[in-house]
């Protein structure tokens, strides 16, 4: 199912779609395509898990379907649901039509059974089925779909059980109709922020990749691609500062390190403010973009900002 003969080809296609994947990630994606397995991505918020699915759908020119998970997500919101209103209407209409001949009670018990069986067949037919993302993904015509099951860890454990059949066999069983199998096997990406450990049954059906924060060059490439208006010096400064914020001496001071999304936003903000080079003052003013918690914003002191900005020039 992969149009990419090599890992390099895939990396380039992703890059063309605006996603800069490192070699290990590209390998995992390549395998997911080649072995037709779902890929489970775990990592801190803001490392580009969701973005990968979007880039893949662009690169593969497949429609992207997205299932956002949340606590209490049900089968009827993820897989399918019957259109009850239409089913009821159908029944009333059928009843009105057949009223004279098939009033219950006029025929024998066999006859009543037949009527019920016929009604069941009529009412539970595919056109009264509301397809939710999982089922849609299975039935998307060629070239198929990219299904993103986002933040699986937010859904509760019972929900994972609904996923198993899909992940393992690419099929969904509907008691009234039978089993729906995939026409074209959907490329399936699951993401998790690891607020809880996922069930082994889910993991066994997936390939796994832990996404880390990108190294500096990759981050720089991302910032440059996303914010082309920023001067290269500014982009380099952004990548350097954010990289430092995530690494040890500084990371401990904050509850949550800024992700890639934050560095891109920050670069955009700096451009909007016509900043040529970051100084501690600008950094303090724009700290709310890097950090989303009051304590973290407060923790970024002027001294620390100076420290963050200063040694950058020394080794360079």
């Amino acid at each position, binding site marked *: 199912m992969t149009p990419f003969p090599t*890992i390099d080809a895939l990396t380039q296609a992703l890059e063309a779609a605006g996603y800069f994947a490192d*070699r*290990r990630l590209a*390998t*995992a994606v*390549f*395998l*997911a395509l*080649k*072995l037709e*397995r779902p*890929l*489970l991505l*775990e990592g801190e918020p803001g490392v580009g898990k969701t973005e990968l699915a979007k880039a893949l759908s662009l690169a593969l020119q497949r429609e992207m379907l997205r299932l956002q998970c*949340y*606590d*209490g997500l*049900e089968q009827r919101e993820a897989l399918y649901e*019957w259109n*009850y209103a239409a*089913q*009821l209407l159908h*029944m*009333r209409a*059928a*009843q009105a039509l057949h009223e004279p001949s098939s009033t*219950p009670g006029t025929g024998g018990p066999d006859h009543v059974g037949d*009527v*019920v069986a016929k*009604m*069941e067949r009529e*009412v539970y037919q595919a056109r009264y089925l509301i397809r939710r993302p999982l089922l849609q993904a299975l039935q998307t015509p060629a070239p198929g779909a990219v299904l993103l099951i986002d933040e699986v860890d937010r859904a*509760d*454990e*019972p929900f994972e059980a609904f996923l198993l059949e899909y992940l393992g066999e690419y099929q969904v069983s509907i008691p009234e109709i039978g089993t729906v199998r995939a026409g074209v096997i959907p490329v399936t990406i699951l993401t998790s*922020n*690891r*607020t*809880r*450990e996922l069930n*082994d049954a889910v*993991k*066994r059906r*997936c*390939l*796994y*990749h*832990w996404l880390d924060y990108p190294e500096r060059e990759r981050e720089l490439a991302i910032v440059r691609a996303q914010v082309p208006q920023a001067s290269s010096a500014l982009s380099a400064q952004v990548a350097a500062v954010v990289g430092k914020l995530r690494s040890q001496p500084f990371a*401990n001071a904050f*509850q949550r390190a800024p992700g890639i999304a934050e560095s891109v936003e920050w670069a955009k903000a700096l451009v909007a403010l016509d900043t040529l080079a970051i100084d501690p003052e600008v950094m303090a003013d724009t700290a709310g973009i890097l950090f989303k918690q009051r*304590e973290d914003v407060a923790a970024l002191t002027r001294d620390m900002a100076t420290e963050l900005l200063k040694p950058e020039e020394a080794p360079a």
Partner: protein
Amino acid sequence: MLLGDSRSGKLADNITEFGRALRRAGVRVDSARIALAAEAALAVGLEAKADVSAAMEAVMVSREQDRLVFRELFDVFFRNPEVAQKLLSQLLPSAEGKAEPSKRRPRVREALSPQKAFGHQAKPKEEDQKVEFDAAMTASDLQRLKHADFNALSATEYRLVERLARDVRLPLPYVASRRMRPGPAGARLHWSGVMRHAVRTGGELMHLPRMQRREQPLPLLVLVDVSGSMERYARLLLAFLHAATRRHPRRDVFAFGTQLTDLTPAFRLADTDEMLAHASAAIEDFAGGTQLGESLATLRHHHARRLVGRRTLVLVITDGLDTGEPQALDDELTWLGRHSRRLLWLNPLLRFDGYAPVARGAAVLSRHAQGMLAVHNLSKLEDLAGSLASLMKA
């Protein structure tokens, strides 16, 4: 590279051996995964070792904490499988698959690190480091690292714990979850049920089944003080908590003294004795001082995710004789309070009737706790279990 040639079947053999080695190092890999790993290696081609490593990792690893083990073992194994095998068999004789993950990793790393490769002194060396670490730590003379020594339960104790767990019901608060189930008390129609009935009656709606919300207990996070002053209670307390919350779908348990120990993996074991054995091995600061503030900082930095969506019920069991900085404790408790549904404090040490939380730590704790119960003369597990229950009711 010693991956071998696929035609001769050597590749498959090597990967199978590697899979076994991984398993011995505590990474869960089943045979289906091993077969898939061979397929993956062939899919990326055998030219670049890094690609093969990444490919096999995507297949054989399914948890973040196993990645490093995998990479190190991969490097050693495919440089020289025999050395790796020997290393593993020497240093990981029975590598218990159930050991907690955080313990496992350093052990594997130790087993594979070159400088310790030929010695059996890995263990004592670790001990040495610990002492140094201890000496370098703080001025607090209360801190002495000591492993807890929890004996397995005696038959009488076992029966007591089991009986109490059965009889003293911890009234863990239940909240309506977002998941529905068929039931008479609901406001919503159970549509698929309605349809099933309607079909049978020819479209006539004679009976309207309903859906109601499922109830689920609040996630539970327990912080148990194992410092010197709590020494006497810790063992049976843990045993009782383990038995009483056995069916709780989401419980996290931490022990704290001068540092924070995650007992959740130990609590996942079904057997109480096994749990105690694992807890003993895990707790390194048993019967030392109390530094709740610092322990909470560790919790915030490394385990903040355990506090599920601000719904968690946090239960702190401590005497509040904290030796840390009160301001730091205050900050940490503010954070904890903001990230949890309720903060309850069970204070089991107080032998004096006129007790008021005046000690620095205790004063801070009582300000933040939404429920506090001080229990006088708590010598029996019955009392402890009862007080826990009444604290939750409050």
